[in-house]
């Protein structure tokens, strides 16, 4: 370009930009005059300027160049000896690591392995430790579809490495195409992948990077997963400065990343489910769900977070789709094959909200299995697990913490000041200090919790405490080798933190999975201690408590059967310990707690249970006997009396379920009396107030049954007032909200019975609102869902009674759907099945009833409970009656009656 022309062009360009936009056109007319070519030139330049800055002119080039430089510097390890292996050749490269083929050099046989070397050093001992422990966790994964981690360490230059099985295979998508697998074959292969992922999840390991490149299929058609959790392991090796990391080390293609991954949030097993969904999408259609945005990483990330993926059937049918499954014929045929079930299955896994995807890889696989078996695919909108609970059990009086150390712990100063000690000299001095502080701090963890435990309104403080505690405990664990004293403290601490996180018997934050993890840690530590010294009674106690805690939280996650095993172990251990030291009060309380937990699991209607009411009653009586004994020895023992009150309510519940209302009332009144005196003795105590509220409610229940509605209403209003006060004082406390929901439900029921339909409706609506909020806040738990279903159906019924038919239908349908979800899980409990059946039989509007389905569900309930549960039998009888099978109905009612009368005989003993 001629210099002169260029200068003129520039002059006009710059001036045009400098003048105000409305005047620009006029100015250009004047400046360019007749020179059309010039005008054209300027216009196009201005257009280019105006098109905005979101293109190559963003200054990431420097950062990219930096990364390229870094890549070039990492020396090849070929030929190097690493441990007993010799590196043969490079297989591939990743963002921060390289994988090499290596062979074992020191023996006659040559076993081929893959060695992944992280091209970064580990800069502190702390990081090394973390890398090691993570690696050890990964190494425990032992599954035919997962490449094993065999070994690991650091090279001579200090680079961490991992030794893995060497897998020769093709990425799953290429394998499927190369072997022309049809849709069913691909689905079956996919199920194998899910099994591997499920196994890892059960071991609390998330893959984080599921994609075809990480799923190789061997020549004999076996899928093998690579790189489990290694993304996390690798980042544990080299913590990156956050700002640089996000731009420089951004993934090449986030195609398989979940929305939460893209946003850099915490990952859960649901993130893996999402990635599995993308994988399945690709296997079925040959394309990615957000195809149209694939060109730019940024746009793709945005699509992942915001856009709805196209239905697989639609994508597959699009002409020109490359790589779609062969063996299905035309794209149109494929579309029909995928339409419906498979579309829904895939889309469910791809939901933006983690809690709305499949709850597990196994669930995902099962739905695929159902499709293959031509069974109805179950729509699972949510992970369907919520909790509500009403019982507090433990009560430890604690010493109030001094303000200074409380501030220390909560502000995390202890933790961060440790981190700040880098230099060795300082480290030694800090270690000494640390030991002292540690003793203080761990004891603080307990006192702090104890003293706030019984104050209303303390939940936000608890959340912070949990966070700090976990960070802190993790650091401590690394220091704890060979130090039994510290290990005991850690076990105790993990139990406490787990309680705070998600134990249904304590005021907690509703994080059942978190609690599970903490309890597992406590168990591991206790087991190690007990193993090291068989005479260590303290270790045995921790072991028993760990089992018990696990048993308490597992039902919340749908694993009631596993829970029973754990709780039995716990009670057996406690029994043994109590025999050894009969005067230890704490121990006795723990034993009683264990019996109570066992009872709850076996047969308590308002919690996840197994339908064994006789077993439950037996267990409860044992617990009561312990507390009774303690209260007799020491009448001032509030703990024992509180325990007694709660147990009386439990036993009353069992009697009520067996139709022994007289017996139940006696126990409930007993509980009410105890609770009233306890609440009077200690008015600031939440727990006693809760027991009092509970007792009122229970007494009311019996009164309702007997038609004494006025008395019932009195008690119910008392109960509701207490729970309302408690919930208002501590709005974040899930348990308080749950209790309130229960009180209001009872009140609503009663108001409805006494003809106050309007007020009842108001209460039910409140209940639904509370339960919805609880569901949203704590999605990993299994109980509130059922309560929500009941509440919605109850609301629907009252709405129907008041002739708001459309609303009634909506509410009841929704409740029914939720109940159906719960009832159709493979681990559904008898109560869940019975609930669903009952709803199907008695709901309003009546057009929604379905006797046939109710019968199916009720039959299953009876089957699972071994025909021993009167309630499920009664409901089954009702189902028979409503489907017109009078003979069977009568027979079943007989069965129920005979169980009830024998139960009454049993319960008449107290």
């Amino acid at each position: 370009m001629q210099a002169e022309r260029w200068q003129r062009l520039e002059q006009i360009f710059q001036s045009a930009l400098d003048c105000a936009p409305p005047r620009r056109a006029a100015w250009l007319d004047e400046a360019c005059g007749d020179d059309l070519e010039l005008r054209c030139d300027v216009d196009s330049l201005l257009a280019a300027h105006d098109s905005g800055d979101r293109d190559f002119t963003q200054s990431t080039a420097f950062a990219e160049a930096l990364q390229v430089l870094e890549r070039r510097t990492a020396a090849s390890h070929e030929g190097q000896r690493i441990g007993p292996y010799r590196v043969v050749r490079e297989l591939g490269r990743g963002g921060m690591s390289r994988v090499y083929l290596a062979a074992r050099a020191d023996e006659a046989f040559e076993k081929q392995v893959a060695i992944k070397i992280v091209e970064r050093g580990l800069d502190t001992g702390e990081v090394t430790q973390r890398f090691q422990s993570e690696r050890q966790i990964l190494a425990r994964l032992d599954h035919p579809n997962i490449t094993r981690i065999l070994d690991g360490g650091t090279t001579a230059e200090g680079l961490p490495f991992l030794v893995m099985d060497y897998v020769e295979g093709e990425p799953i998508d290429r394998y499927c195409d190369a072997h022309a697998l049809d849709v069913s074959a691909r689905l079956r292969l996919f199920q194998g992948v899910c099994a591997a992922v499920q196994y890892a999840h059960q071991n609390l390991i998330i893959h984080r990077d599921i994609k075809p490149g990480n799923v190789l299929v061997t020549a004999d058609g076996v899928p093998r997963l690579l790189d489990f959790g290694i993304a996390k392991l690798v980042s544990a090796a080299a913590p990156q400065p956050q700002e640089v990391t996000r731009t420089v080390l951004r993934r090449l293609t986030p195609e398989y990343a979940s929305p939460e991954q893209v946003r850099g949030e915490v990952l859960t097993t649901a993130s893996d489910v999402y990635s599995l969904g993308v994988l399945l999408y690709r296997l079925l259609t040959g394309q990615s769900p957000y195809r149209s945005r694939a060109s730019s990483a940024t746009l793709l990330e945005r699509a992942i977070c915001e856009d709805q993926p196209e239905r697989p059937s639609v994508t597959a049918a699009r002409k020109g789709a490359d790589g779609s499954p062969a063996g299905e014929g035309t794209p149109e045929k494929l579309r029909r094959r995928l339409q419906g079930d498979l579309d829904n299955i895939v889309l469910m896994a791809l939901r933006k909200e983690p809690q709305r995807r499949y709850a597990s890889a196994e669930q995902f696989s099962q739905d695929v299995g159902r499709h293959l078996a031509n069974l109805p695919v179950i729509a699972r909108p949510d992970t369907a697990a919520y909790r509500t609970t009403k019982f507090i059990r433990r009560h430890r009086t604690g010493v109030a913490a001094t303000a200074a150390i409380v501030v220390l712990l909560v502000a995390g100063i202890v933790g961060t000041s440790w981190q700040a000690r880098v230099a060795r000299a300082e480290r030694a001095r800090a270690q000494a200090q640390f030991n002292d502080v540690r003793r203080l701090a761990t004891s603080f963890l307990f006192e702090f919790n104890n003293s706030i435990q019984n104050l209303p309104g303390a939940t936000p403080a608890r959340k912070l405490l949990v966070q700090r505690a976990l960070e802190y405990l993790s650091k401590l664990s690394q220091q704890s080798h060979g130090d039994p004293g510290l290990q005991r403290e850690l076990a105790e601490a993990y139990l406490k933190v787990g309680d705070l996180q998600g134990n249904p018997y304590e005021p907690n934050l509703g994080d059942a999975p978190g609690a599970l993890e903490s309890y597992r840690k406590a168990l591991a530590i206790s087991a190690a201690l007990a193993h090291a010294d068989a005479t260590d009674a303290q270790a045995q106690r921790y072991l028993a408590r760990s089992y018990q805690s696990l048993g308490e939280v597992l039902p919340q996650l749908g694993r009631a059967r596993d829970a029973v095993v754990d709780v039995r172990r716990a009670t057996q251990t406690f029994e043994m310990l109590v025999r050894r030291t009969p005067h230890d009060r704490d121990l006795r309380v723990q034993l009683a707690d264990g019996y109570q937990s066992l009872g709850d699991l076996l047969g308590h209607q308002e919690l996840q249970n197994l339908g064994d009411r006789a077993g439950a009653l037996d267990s409860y009586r044992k617990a009561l006997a312990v507390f009774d004994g303690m209260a007799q020895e020491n009448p001032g023992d509030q703990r024992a009396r509180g325990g007694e009150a709660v147990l009386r309510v439990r036993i009353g519940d069992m009697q009520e379920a067996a139709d022994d209302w007289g017996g139940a009332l006696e126990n409930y009144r007993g509980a009410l009396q105890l609770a009233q005196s306890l609440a009077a003795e200690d008015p600031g105590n939440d727990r006693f107030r809760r027991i009092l509220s509970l007792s009122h409610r229970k007494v009311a229940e019996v009164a309702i049954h007997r038609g004494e509605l006025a008395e019932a209403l009195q008690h119910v209003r008392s109960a509701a007032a207490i729970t309302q006060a408690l919930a208002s004082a501590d709005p974040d406390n899930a348990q308080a909200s749950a209790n309130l929901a229960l009180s209001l439900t009872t009140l609503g029921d009663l108001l409805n019975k006494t003809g106050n339909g309007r007020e009842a409706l108001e209460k039910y609506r409140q209940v639904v609102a509370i339960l919805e909020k609880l569901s949203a806040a704590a999605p990993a738990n299994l109980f509130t869902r059922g309560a929500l279903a009941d509440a919605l159906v109850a609301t629907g019924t009252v709405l129907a009674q008041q002739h708001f038919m459309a609303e009634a239908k909506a509410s009841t349908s929704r409740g029914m759907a939720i109940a159906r979800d719960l009832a159709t899980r493979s681990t559904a409990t008898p109560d869940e099945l019975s609930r669903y059946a009952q709803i199907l039989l008695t709901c309003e509007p009546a057009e929604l009833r379905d006797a046939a389905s109710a019968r199916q569900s009720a039959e299953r309930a009876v089957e699972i409970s071994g025909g021993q549960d009167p309630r499920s039998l009664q409901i089954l009888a009702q189902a028979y009656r409503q489907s017109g099978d009078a003979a069977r109905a009568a027979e079943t009612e007989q069965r129920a009656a005979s169980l009830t009368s024998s139960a009454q005989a049993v319960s008449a003993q107290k």
Partner: protein
Amino acid sequence: MNRSKDFNELIPGDTTRLLAEWRAGDTAAFDRLLPVVYQELRRLASSCMRGERRDHLLQTTALVHEAYLRLVDQRDANYQTRAHFFAVAAQVMRHVLVDYARTRRRAKRGGGVPTVPLEDVAVISPERAEELIAVDAALESLMAFDLRKGRIFELRHFGGLSVEEAAQVLKVSPATVARDWRMAKAWLRRAIASGSAHAG
């Protein structure tokens, strides 16, 4: 101060001298500077990525500045030396990156045995590689008839310099840099969009 063990390292005085020579118009001096600066930046990049640096890299120019401090004897240097150093660094970065882009392009298109192991995660996507190659070509064209604008683009886009820093390097006002920058961007955008570098 730490010294790298690289045997073909130049001692600081050499670098300063080379820079001065280059400033005086000796292009051979530039050719000798390039590998030195490259080595140094590479070393720093590596240590940066390994997390060995305590001060996390919040400003990209900090890295170049560090290289400058290590390579140039500060007693002989003046503000101009620094300016030229940064210009060299920007060119190094450009060269490194475009070279890499070309390699990626070859790896993607070429069949047969790859001489370079396949990268599981490349630094840049194939689309970005094409883009960089196009930018590089267009930039060459631009520099042919307006060197200053080309340099400014190079300094800012490949060297990571801010408007003020680029102004110091080129000894012009920041306002000038800003104007040159916006025109350079527009021109390059247009050139790339139209698929060819406009000759005129």
